[in-house]
């Protein structure tokens, strides 16, 4: 004998209302998460424009953009890597290596000045990608080793960091310092690459593959995505972009400086995370990364404006800011509760 007791006939309606409310919250939170960085950037810029007269000048904006060009390239590559659920700690070293190689190779002409850093840094990216994709070693460790190796290579080429190559090719120098419509060539170059990157990520099968690998590697494999190949490609891209960023910087400075670069990888990670990309992969946009890089750049610029705050305070503020943003992000993700 069975007794069936329906406990609450009104339950289905209550469930439906709950679902609708949940969907609404979900949509709002999703928007905040994606556009959060942009919103904060807008607020900060508004504040800066109101409080600091120097900030409003076109020159200042141009300065911010030019300074942000190399970090932007690095962060672009880092976005792809983090979207697949990985990380690339070697970009800082590759950036310096790229700069030194570009300066050294510039004696052989413009083409060499770009080709050599791209080839070498790209090759290191290939090694990173192959090790990570085919041997299941943690990206953290593999790229950490690459960080050391690339730094060693850089030192070997520059006689233990003592030799600073001067850029020999004038065209190369002009690329770094010239401008079109009063905006530096590097900024244009970066803008083009950013657009290409956005198209690649959101409008190609490869882009979808990147999101799938980061979202659920196992499912992506079962759905037929070439997981390992996708992973190799993102690390190659990251290496190439870091090398390119270094070359551009060498062109601008006119030499291959050997002492920069510490912490650039962490700046890039911070920018990507602030921009709304999940460290675990599978969600995020390049637009967010752009906002993140610009935000950090604007803050840096503001601190310089204030004048008596030295770079150490800048570090403190950056650190605090990063913590704040990431905490906010984590709570937003919890609110969405996607299975």
């Amino acid at each position, binding site marked *: 004998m*069975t007794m069936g007791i*329906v406990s*609450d006939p009104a339950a289905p309606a209550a469930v439906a209302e709950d679902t609708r409310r949940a*969907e609404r919250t979900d949509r709002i939170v999703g928007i905040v998460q994606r556009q959060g960085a942009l919103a904060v950037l807008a607020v900060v810029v508004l504040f800066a424009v109101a409080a600091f007269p120097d900030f409003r000048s076109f020159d200042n904006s141009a300065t911010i953009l030019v300074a942000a060009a190399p970090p932007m390239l690095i962060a672009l590559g880092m976005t792809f890597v983090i979207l697949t659920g990985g990380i690339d700690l070697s970009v800082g070293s590759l950036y310096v290596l790229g700069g030194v190689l570009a300066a050294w190779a510039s004696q052989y002409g413009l083409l060499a000045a770009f080709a050599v850093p791209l080839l070498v840094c790209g090759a290191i990216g290939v090694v990173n990608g192959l090790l990570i994709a085919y041997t299941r070693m943690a990206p953290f460790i593999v790229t950490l080793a690459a960080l050391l190796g690339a730094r060693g290579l850089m030192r070997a080429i520059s006689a233990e960091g003592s030799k600073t190559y001067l850029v020999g090719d004038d065209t190369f120098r002009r690329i770094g310092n010239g401008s079109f419509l009063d905006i530096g060539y590097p900024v244009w170059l970066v803008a083009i690459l950013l657009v290409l990157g956005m198209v690649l990520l959101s409008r*190609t099968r490869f882009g979808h*593959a990147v999101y*799938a690998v980061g979202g659920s590697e196992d*499912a992506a494999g079962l759905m037929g995505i070439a997981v390992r190949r996708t992973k190799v490609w993102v690390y190659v891209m990251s290496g190439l972009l870091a090398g390119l960023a270094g070359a551009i910087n060498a062109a601008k400075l006119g030499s291959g400086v050997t002492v920069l670069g510490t912490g650039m990888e962490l700046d890039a990670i911070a920018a990507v995370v602030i921009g709304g990309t999940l460290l675990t992969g599978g969600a995020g946009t390049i637009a967010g990364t752009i906002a993140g890089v610009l935000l950090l750049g604007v803050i840096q610029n503001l601190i310089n404006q204030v004048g008596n705050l030295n770079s150490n305070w800048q570090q403190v503020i950056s650190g605090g800011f990063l913590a704040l943003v990431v905490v906010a992000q984590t709570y937003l993700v919890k609110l969405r509760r996607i299975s």
Partner: protein
Amino acid sequence: MALLEVVDVSKIFPGVRALDEVSFRLEEGEVHALVGENGAGKSTLIKVLTGVYQPDAGELRYAGEPARFGTPMEAQRAGISTIYQEVNLVPLMSVAQNLFLGREPRNRFGLLDRARMDREAAEMLAGYGVTADVRRPLGTLALGAQQMVALARAVMIDAKVVIMDEPTSSLEPREVETLFGVIRDLHARGIGIIYVSHRLDELYQICDAVTILRDGRVVHTGKLADLERIRLVALMLGREMAEVRREGATAFSGEATADDDAEPILRVIGLSSRNKLHDVSFDVRPGEVVGLGGLLGAGRSETIKAIGGAYRLDAGDVRVDGVDLKRPTTVQAVKAGIAVQPEDRKAEGIIPGLSVRENIALAVLPRMARFGLVSDAKIDAVVERYMTRLRIKASSPDQAVGDLSGGNQQKVLLARLLATNPKVLLLDEPTRGIDVGAKAEVQGLIDELAAEGLGVVLVSSDAEELIEGADRVVVLRDGVVVGTLTGASVTTEDLMATIAEAAND
């Protein structure tokens, strides 16, 4: 000529022969059932067919030619499409993106045509009864809807063989009808289907042929219509038909040990969690086994986790032996005498790198220590006791738990729970993925523990196990309690009917 053929295939893992010279034929347009207990080798066989594993012996023949699938992609390209029980899609990506992943429509510039993708996805899914916005992340859909998306995707590619692994476990009756409609359509087109399921009614409704696996071997293959249900169950279990008829399909004794006069040892009142649980309430008396029934995604695991403090509750109250916990944390729940055995022992149960000893002693370390220093002697005593009582087979207590068989891992988890001297046991799929022998032992153990006065809450997607093991079954649907089944002669049909009846509101 058979569409897909498996010839004397064996697959060996360290210490285990998962498939032992298995032979199997799928004809064109045939709907072929694949049955067997958990651990009989069904998933391994499917993984061999879909290119996840390669056979260690024997061969595959596809459309008459020998075939070797090195990767899932190769099998897919050859026309073998699969739907899994756990929806193997990407929750963070949109519904449309998931549907078209890898085959996204492109415009004349070679770039993805998003508008077309979204439009075609919406059209296609409407035919499957999915009306959600295709741009939303897949993970925001109910599990049943997600499964329909997986089904649509599987059918979309030019498949010649479609393999369905427990496809209805999360589907509403209405969605099951849609699924059957799709199957009949595929059948008419000459596509072969391999249908894996526990639900015998469904099999008899939709399948032409059946192959029964037990312990990695084929024990029967042939037309389904020629096989009596009782005989099918008996073959699956390896028991005599008469015995099955008499004692049921499981090792549960069927004796009720509940103490009807006592106060409930567990009272669950009004558990609610946004969008997942709605006012779930029930009682458990000492010695009673209460089953939680319902489809995958109905909220059974969430209810169990919520009682154990591991799932965020917006409202509700948990009372153990008269003590009011309100919405407990896991620490409070364990202290109060609640013990939870999770559904996924690999992800949330065992600590694979640690030894059997360490795993068993995990929850009671403070009791085994003085001033924070661990006493190995005390631990040894407790571990010895439980290894004996539960008959845990390991080379020694120091063996890494990850190396044990599924059944023994499950027993180690139970030992961990029992070591805390719980008052209430919450078991989520305690016999999933373990061999027949261990399964019987665990079921017997549950009977014993109930007889000793523990309150037990049991979740099982094996309807037989649920019906025979529980004194009462509380049926959940979409996080709402829709009915309770009591009595000695409850059948699995009653369970299905209760779920279906609620759906017609």
